[in-house]
């Protein structure tokens, strides 16, 4: 039942918000998401340590087609839901100093987005997963379209079509698998696993690519990434945070839940190309990030690099890689939201995101500088920040796939430091200039957000055990199953 509550509470809240007028909207939205977070915490408390799927609910939905409303959470899902419900209130909080046109619509869309995201992470029916997957696209599209920056119509449209392309390919593959299920066709996850694993090598390969495309575009993986920097840049700050912080994880989560176990043999025989692309993407995006002038864009590219590593680690398909992937998804979510929020703070104060034209802000607000630095260190995966745990496990996973691959993937360790420190230096250090004459003090909501995020960054860097413990058994079960099916 708690799963249903998790899914539908945001939807109800979203509908309710439509009818709220005026200043109260923000607070109500924040309240609703905090309640949602509290529900998640309740679920966490009720969660029995282990590798089983819990909080399962299953209703027959479209009976004639074997489609069920089947949801439930194992460790991995639970963590993803946790990430979503943790980040959304924070994202809403980041907007407290901002006045959007039509706030009720805006926050309603954000909550609708949360509804879809939670749905994606808890679905245990292929069709349901697909519905939520697509559903998530609509609110974010409108968020970007209605409140975005320059050129948004063209850019967000490209984003929409691009992701839709992938989704439709996935839909094709899902239908194909569905039709291969035994007996009465069904979209049940177990049935899909079975039908996928029953395919021969060639067909698993086709299915692999069709499904992977959807995820690759969503994440995005080189060379399917070109929608991403533009979209991140043009989206309103909160939209970017939703996109990068949570939505991107739909892709990586999808690989874990809906790709590896479905076509293990296909993964075994095709993952090398996918991993190669991911790894190329790491270096490629890092290099491009180095020469970015717009800080938001830089973070966008850095996100491509990070997600490339996640993808490579997951596709390597061993316990460390997948576990690292899960942890890194959480960390990346937190870090990237922090970074984009910092961009937002800067933009709001100076009206520019141009790295070169800023400078010396450290002189003006040391506190902000420290918080920025912590977020940045999390992003470059310094040990004892959350980024490190995931990155270490991921590199470990990739290394088991191929030492040289890991070495190249590891270049992100270096290049990440290069572009991050470069921009930090240019923005924060040195002398102030004509643009950065003064720095309006951080408002309490800004402070709160940054401190919460920094606490999360440090807290889970030092003591990631709770997260690892939740994910661990589920990951092991999943990976063991996949490896067994691979014949390894």
């Amino acid at each position, binding site marked *: 039942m708690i799963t249903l509550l998790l899914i539908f509470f945001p939807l109800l809240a979203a509908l309710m918000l439509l009818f709220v007028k005026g200043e109260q909207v923000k607070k109500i939205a924040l309240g609703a998401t905090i309640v949602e977070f509290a529900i998640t915490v309740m679920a966490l408390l009720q969660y029995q340590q282990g590798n089983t799927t819990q909080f399962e609910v299953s209703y027959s939905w479209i009976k004639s087609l074997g489609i069920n409303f089947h949801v439930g959470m194992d460790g991995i899902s639970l963590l993803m839901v946790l990430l979503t419900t943790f980040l959304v209130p924070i994202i809403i909080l980041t907007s407290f100093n901002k006045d959007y046109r039509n706030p009720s619509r805006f926050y309603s869309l954000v909550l609708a987005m949360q509804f879809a995201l939670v749905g994606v992470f808890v679905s245990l029916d292929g069709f349901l997963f697909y519905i939520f997957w697509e559903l998530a696209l609509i609110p974010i599209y409108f968020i970007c379209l209605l409140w975005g920056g320059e050129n948004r119509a063209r850019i967000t449209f490209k984003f929409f079509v691009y992701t839709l392309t992938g989704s439709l390919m996935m839909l094709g593959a899902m239908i194909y698998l569905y039709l291969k299920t035994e007996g009465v066709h069904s979209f049940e996850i177990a049935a899909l696993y079975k039908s996928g694993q029953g395919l021969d090598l060639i067909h698993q390969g086709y299915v692999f690519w069709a499904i992977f495309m959807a995820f690759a575009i969503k994440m995005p993986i080189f060379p399917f990434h070109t929608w991403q920097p533009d979209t991140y840049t043009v989206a309103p700050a909160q939209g970017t945070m939703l996109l990068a912080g949570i939505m991107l994880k739909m892709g990586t989560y999808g690989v874990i839940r809906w790709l590896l176990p479905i076509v293990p043999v296909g993964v075994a025989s095709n993952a090398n190309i996918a991993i190669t692309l991911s790894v190329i993407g790491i270096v*490629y995006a890092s*290099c491009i990030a*180095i020469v970015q002038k717009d800080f938001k864009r830089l973070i966008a590219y850095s996100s491509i690099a990070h997600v490339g590593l996640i993808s490579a680690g997951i596709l390597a398909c061993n316990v460390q890689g997948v*576990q690292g992937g899960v942890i890194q998804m959480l960390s990346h979510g937190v870090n990237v939201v922090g970074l984009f929020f910092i961009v937002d703070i800067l933009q709001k104060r100076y009206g520019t995101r141009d790295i070169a034209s800023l400078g010396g802000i450290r002189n003006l607000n040391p506190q902000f500088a420290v918080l920025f630095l912590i977020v940045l260190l999390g992003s470059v995966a310094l*040990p004892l920040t959350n980024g490190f745990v995931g990155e270490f496990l991921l*590199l470990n996973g990739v290394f088991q796939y191929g030492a040289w691959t890991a070495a190249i993937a*590891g*270049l992100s360790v270096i290049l990440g430091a290069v572009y991050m420190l470069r921009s930090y*230096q240019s923005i924060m250090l040195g002398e102030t200039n004509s643009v950065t004459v003064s720095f309006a003090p951080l408002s309490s909501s800004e402070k709160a957000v940054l401190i919460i995020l920094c606490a999360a960054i440090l807290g889970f860097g030092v003591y990631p*055990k709770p997260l690892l413990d939740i994910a661990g058994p589920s990951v092991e079960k999943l990976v063991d199953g996949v490896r067994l099916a691979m014949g390894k």
Partner: protein
Amino acid sequence: MIKLVGLVPLLPLIGFVIIGLFGKSLSKGIVGVIGCGSVLAAFAVSLGIFFELTGQAEKSVTIDLFSWITAGKLSIPFSFLIDPLSSLFLLIVTGIGFLIHVYSTGYMSHDEGFARFFAYLNLFIFFMLLLVLGSNYLIMFVGWEGVGLCSYLLIGFWFKNTAYNNAAKKAFIMNRIGDLGFLLGIILIFVTFGSIGYHDVFEQAKNMATGSPVLTSIALLLFVGAMGKSAQIPLFTWLPDAMAGPTPVSALIHAATMVTAGIYMVARSNILYTLSPVAMETVAIVGVCTALFAATIGLAQNDIKKVLAYSTVSQLGFMFLALGVGAYTGAVFHVMTHAFFKALLFLGAGSVIHAMSGEQDIRRMGGLKKHLPITHITFLLGTLAIVGCPPFSGFFSKDEILANAFENNKLLWFLGVLGAAMTTFYMFRLYFLTFKGDFRGTKEQHHHLHESPKSMTMPLVILAVLAVIGGLVGIPEALGGKHMLEGFLKPVFEDSSFRMVHSMSHENEYMLMGIAVLVMLGSLYYAYQVYVKNKTLPAEESEDLKPLHLLVYKKYWVDEFYENLITKPLNFFSDVLHKLFDNQIVDGFVNGIGRFITWLSGILRYAQTGNMGFYVFAMVIGIVLILFTRIF
């Protein structure tokens, strides 16, 4: 006491947190007390641990704190290992750290970032302690990167200065290059042994064949990390630049402790190296090359801290030479003595700079002897220690290294002696130009000259004492000593002992010592001739230099080389990737599809002519085509 090991890093961390959070509202005095006090307390605990360890039979104690990272069979506890090696390093780190803290209260007393400075220093001590205390490679890595961060923060301490910031960034990035190697090494260790705890790894490694490729790979990857942190060729250029930081930082981080982390790591992993001759050779060669290379650069530098920095690089090279020839004890010994005298020298240099109001160019100094008596005498003692003048501490440690090198390979020994000779020359050049002769600075500087306050001279004195007597713990048997240090560290290097054969006769040892002393004296005499007798001064910037001199003065253009070979091409490549490949080709393709569709639509719609004749015609053609399928 050993049970309380958690306190050792915790105390500086607490200091960091308090100063970091409330530093602004605390007075400098309180900040100083908290900063120094926390390290002193850590030192006290470390001493306790040291004595407890020497007193008990069990020489290796693991303290588990909590489980840190688990994933499948990978399980990494957050735990500490107390053994002779780590306890020795604990003492060095907390001891020297404390002295430098005290020194800093004086040195930094006028800086507005006083509290921040102490916060960083305490954080550094914390990470450094993690580095040496960790019971597995990942904890070491945590400390490893952590000290890198602190180094970054402290080099760029005066963050308004772009050059300093660049130096800081450079240090961090170069370290990261090494760190990647280290990280991959750790992962390879896990993949090979299924664990990264020292105990498990060494137990299994012991039983592996000598020269197995995987061990070699591990050893080399770890060594890449060491190269970065300990500033070895080719990753050494950051260290001289790191002198941008306040002088106590140079003393603590970039001379005494952090940069020796590489030595610690190799010494810690001795068994892996011992079993891998290729890696050993690599370490030795890199070490000796660095020793020589840095020494030559040191010959021509005019910045007091730069000279010391290259000297540090060179001395680190000696340490790696020691490791490479299997003299693990020798290396650790040199780490210790080097920590004493190099910290002393740096602090002395700091005192000089303090007195000279920030001037660092030795061409502007001279004759400081009478103005800074304590600094002068302690600096001289430090110099004598570093050049290996008996019976100062440096003599014993350097002698041990050279003796082991001789045993291993005559050429290595010869190069080592050459390096030592150069060390003597540039150190005395530095000493003579700074303290002897006439004052060459401005009137204002002259007027301002004064001895440093107690808080600064006291540490100098203590360190000078240590620099003088520090060698006594390792008097070789040839000179009638027992080499206590070797005995103390024996459990750590036990597994590797089969490689360390002490077959050298005492005669040979005497001969080597003699040669070393003679070379040292010769070099000293030459320096005296040049800089005291002839009062030669280093060339000014405007003067033309002879090619060889220029080559050395310009540090072999390594920085420029890197700039042109790596940084610029990387930027250029990234630019091309971005503007051409990403925007034009990849994105161009994507947009091209869209444009193609639009174009196609523009064409296709012309089929809709509005003319009914054409519509009917198209229909008929369609029908013809359909019926056509029937015929065949």
